[in-house]
């Protein structure tokens, strides 16, 4: 009888990076189908060109540098798909191809591949394209969710990510439920955005858009560009929300989402480094204050039950 020996743990969860990436691609498929319905066949061409360019770039770079070719893990496919989803569908096909080459080549690999990039490659590509070809990248229309049905199918959507807030929300909810993406950033981000927009008097019909929901659930939660600590993720969500509203309030919430998230990426590691958790049992600032106030209360004996010694 032969036995395998290895270090513990001997049982692990059946989850891989590859699985998470393909799950995200699959979750975005309903939205892609809806946008084909809304924008017609050019949308398919856009997605295909974008994904093709992403895979080809990744393979070429990894081949050139003698690395293991990792196109099967789905990350390049996801980048390609997401870039296609935030580009207006009427653009010529070389636009998404240049975009994804930039996303995968500069955004991802120049910074060191998965886990190492500072800026979300998708956002980097969008920013690059918008700055270089601003007139082509301007969407045909900016949407407004005026009727409840528009949550399902946004007729005024300018990009594929904006066609259906509800479907993106559902896809994200399923991913959160399966723990493929985490919940702190989306919740903090969405609550901050809606609350601030409401306080500033922006009509929510300009805020609850497919693109914003897409940003909340799929771009902000990108793991490499968001903090690791629990508190850090909540703060990051709030920072995202504030920046998006600052841009959105003075311009529009479609472009505001992308610019705001890009700026939030800049401070992600700063937040991460400053929210490292203390050793367990260490009192937080508020607990210390509370204790010092309570210790001055004269009728302390009676409070003792609540004070737990």
């Amino acid at each position: 009888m032969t036995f395998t020996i290895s270090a513990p743990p001997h049982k692990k969860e059946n989850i891989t990076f590859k699985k998470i990436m393909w799950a995200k691609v699959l979750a975005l498929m309903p939205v892609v189908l809806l946008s084909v319905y809304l924008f017609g066949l050019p949308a398919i061409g856009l997605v295909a060109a974008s994904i093709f360019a992403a895979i080809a770039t990744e393979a070429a770079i990894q081949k050139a540098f003698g690395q293991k070719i990792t196109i099967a893990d789905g990350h390049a496919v996801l980048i390609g798909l997401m870039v296609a989803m935030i580009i207006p569908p009427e653009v010529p096909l070389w636009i998404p191809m240049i975009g994804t080459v930039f996303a995968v080549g500069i955004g991802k690999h120049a910074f060191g591949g998965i886990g190492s990039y500072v800026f979300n490659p998708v956002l980097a590509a969008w920013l690059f394209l918008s700055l270089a070809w601003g007139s082509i990248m301007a969407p045909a229309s900016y949407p407004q969710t005026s009727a409840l049905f528009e949550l399902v199918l946004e007729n005024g959507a300018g990009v594929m990510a904006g066609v259906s807030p509800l479907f993106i929300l559902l896809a994200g909810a399923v991913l959160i439920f399966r723990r493929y993406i985490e919940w702190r950033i989306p919740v903090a981000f969405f609550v901050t955005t809606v609350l601030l927009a409401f306080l500033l008097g922006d009509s929510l019909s300009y805020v609850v858009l497919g693109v914003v929901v897409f940003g909340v659930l799929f771009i902000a939660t990108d793991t490499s560009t968001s903090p690791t600590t629990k508190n850090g993720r909540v703060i990051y969500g709030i920072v995202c929300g504030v920046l998006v509203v600052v841009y959105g309030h003075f311009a529009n919430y479609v472009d505001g989402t992308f610019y705001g998230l890009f700026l939030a990426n800049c401070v992600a590691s700063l937040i991460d480094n400053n929210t490292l958790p203390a050793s367990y049992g260490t009192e937080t600032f508020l607990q210390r204050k509370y204790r010092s106030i309570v210790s001055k209360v004269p009728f302390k004996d009676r409070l003792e039950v609540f004070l737990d010694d």
Partner: protein
Amino acid sequence: MTNVYVMEKIPEKIIIPLKQHDGCLCTPLVSKGDMVSMGQKIGDCDCYDSASVHSSVCGEVISIEEAANPNGTKVNSVIIQPTEDVECVDLTPVKDVSASKLVDVIKGAGIVEHYGTPTHKVLRPEGKQIDTVLINATSSEWIGGHYDTSAQYASQMIDALKLLMKAAGASKGAVVLRNDDLESINAFDHLRVDGKLLTVAPLMGKRKLSYYFKDMGSDIIVVSQERIYGQKILDLLTYNLTGRRVSFCCDPTDVGVAICGVKSAKALYDAVHEGRPYIETVVSVSGKVNSPKKILVKIGTPFKDVIDACGGYMGETGKLIANGAVTGVAQYTDDVPVTKMTTSITVLSADEVIRDVSIDCTHCARCADVCPVDLIPSRITAFADQGRFDECRQMNILNCVECGRCSAVCPSKIHLLQLIRYAKNSIENAYEDLSSKESPANLKLGCGCSGGN
């Protein structure tokens, strides 16, 4: 009450390691060819840091040699070939003994905690005073012995706790149960201790044991808490229960807390009431065997025979693990014996063996979400991988309970637990010869514990 089966069949040979604890190796008291009877002391050591070893069967010593041990090393062991007759040494119950005599009884009966420290060393550490004794019944392997009813289990535990308190000279004692273990909670509820009704109190919020001692007006209480597991849970358990922090290079006895397991409590009860040394233990056998069960076996029984008693291997076997699938040690042979530190045996089939390849960390923070002590395992591991142990220490790596949850949930399949252990070992090794380098006065500064106060 979970059924505990008794292993009837006597194996062909019994391997009794002369060291079943962390400490000194015992010297054998028998030699090849001797006949030994059940319960006879076959290994002893004068050193305080050891526990005696007894023969669990009656038979002939066929050799004394280095044999495989479930912790992965080889240990000098007495190998006994059992005979048919069951001849037992005279067992004399030791009732009403003084506290200091009780410590000798514990050492003489060879009682050892499942985490490795001899029980008398936990109760009476040299130069430290214990004031609280805890029986930790929170782990999944809570059944330490063979009981007829759950009420018997509860009352024996309370009796054992009293004995442990007496031996330690401690004034307070508590049994700690698991919140979801309703069977034991019901068993302890409404039990009478010294004429007082006992109630199981769930640990709530920031309340610690001292609150419950005061609240119930009793020195013996039973509390329940969330399940925590891992290799190094003692420090966390001490903090959760008593609010006392255990510093680096110290253990719970430094802050006056003695933590015992159900198994050693049961062994002490048997030693005092029946005079029987620690020669049998319950192991839970799980995984790919034909009939998984909890089984009472004699210490020294090879894993092979335990698995045969559980119906044998099912299908093609991939891994044999001692002490749990999450943190246990994988065995290279099934000829290793059950020792006092063995709590469970897990068998994995060949296709359950993990052969993942690690990729880069994607900072998905799943490890930080599951960590029971609020660490950032991904970042610590990155530092450990680069050998930056000081930074690991600044990030509280020494709080790690080695539960392995971070490794289990990692989508990049990084060997987090292994790297964390590597860093912890390196840090501990760096401090090993500190005393010779530094003056004792400086050494005191590093330690926040104050010897039981």
